[in-house]
């Protein structure tokens, strides 16, 4: 069975910001190749109009009035944060001095 190279798998994993174990890299080499071959079939579809359809309905962009509405409380906003300190969400150090 055709497979992607290890580098190709690591490239798409990087694009998706997903870390993979060595075992996964090997497994996805074959599985991703199947999907890549599938999506390539679109190139063979002939006789296509060049009109693009982003969404099935025609809708006019509706905008809400630009007024202050209900806001989340700090408690709600941080309720599900995996690491927090008071009303702040903790993340690893982003800027080194």
């Amino acid at each position, binding site marked *: 069975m055709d497979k992607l190279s290890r580098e190709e798998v690591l490239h*798409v994993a990087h694009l998706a910001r*997903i870390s993979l174990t060595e075992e996964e890299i090997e*497994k996805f080499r074959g599985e991703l190749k199947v999907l890549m071959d*599938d999506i390539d079939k679109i190139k063979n579809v002939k006789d296509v*109009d060049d009109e*693009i359809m982003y969404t099935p309905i025609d809708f006019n962009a509706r905008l809400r009035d630009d007024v202050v509405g209900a806001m989340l409380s700090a408690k709600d906003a941080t309720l599900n944060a995996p690491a927090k300190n008071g009303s702040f969400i903790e993340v*690893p150090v982003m800027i080194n001095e």
Partner: protein
Amino acid sequence: MSKYLDLSIKEIHELLVKKEITPLDLVEEALKRIEDNKDLNAFITINDKVREEAKDLGEVDPDNIFFGIPIAVKDNIVTKDLRTTCASHILDNFIPIYDATVVKKLKEAKMLIIGKANMDEFAMGSTSETSYFGAPLNPHDKKCVSGGSSGGSAVSVAGGLVPLALGSDTGGSIRQPASYTGIVGMKPTYGRVSRYGLVAFASSLDQIGPMTRTVYENAALLNILVGEDEMDLTSVKKEKEDFTRFIGEDIKGMKIALPKYFISDIVDEEISNKVKEVISFLQENGAVVDVVDMRYLDTAVNLYQIIAMAEASSNLARFDGIRYGFRASDVDDVDSMYTKTRGEGFGDEVKRRIMVGSYILSGENAKVYYDKALMVRDDITKEFNRIFKNYDLIIGPTTTRVAPMLGITKDDPHKAFMDDVLVIPVNMAGLPGLSVPVGINSEGMPIGLHIIGKSFDEATIYRLASFIEEVL
């Protein structure tokens, strides 16, 4: 043990109005059934406040037919203060801080959310086997899959645990499990039901819809789900209508198209024969059924793969381990927090789709794949419109085969899409589609008929479906 939940919604309503039973009786019965059928694995989370909620309704007079009725909600629809996991490790402790618009509507009708139904992880799959919480089982044969991605919703209804459920359908995820489990499942027209609070998979395809035991109950439940919502820009304003209004009418003069592709050799012979039987029956009852050629139907899976994976890769970028959900431990910096969280938090099917989706949208690939798919999508929609100039409805089988055994398609990235080959075209064009049971095969597994309607013409679908349900 009482058997009120085996009654129709109308019959249950009459008992509630006469105060012969209370909402708490219904909830106790549903919880007992769920407990007795735990092996079906239909639910991820049970609402531990549902008894209190039912008691609170005890003194209230029923004001609509869904008052006090227990319902299952697919676990990708957010419910305030009730865990919503999308069947994923990355959200397995997520407590939403608001209700989806459809959930608000259920609560306004004083329905009782019994729990959150199992599903494929982030709705990605066709058997519900990609759930982090294990696959739900088909009540007709527990060795078989329930279908997916709304497998838990389908099992909860087909297994008699609750009379009604909500599912979501991106590429057949309501209709295909409805067909595999022998219930009625409707994907409404794109824009008919607000998607606010539905955890987005592929935003231009996703739609929430009802899964029920009967056509009437399906149409009646859709009545309360629909409507424009300022929180969802793609929801559409329409005149209020009663989707049950044509139920019980005959089908004389109805014009129905059957695309050749839907009875081609990709469909199991027993299913094809059943569909042909139904067609003869429809003709005998005054409907005109013509076999028609339709172009581009065979490209739909390909389009779906490209559009759904691309949109999923963008939508699921929000799961970064910062604001909610799982965060990997032992990370050195922000980059490793993102990649390790996503690597450990997502299952294989989701990883595959996000990786290929990111590739599809990267650089020039967006034109080669995504834009081309959207062009063919436009063509397939025009093809549906061409058929609908001369016909009221399009029909075919919902699936190419009955529910397969567990494990057959797991980890097969291609087969996971092919289960939905007959239902995906509808999502491409944003049309309404419904699966109604039309019998069983020689092994006792349910077969579904797929009925596709014109945009925003769900009522005509229900007319045909109710006629078939009544007589078959």
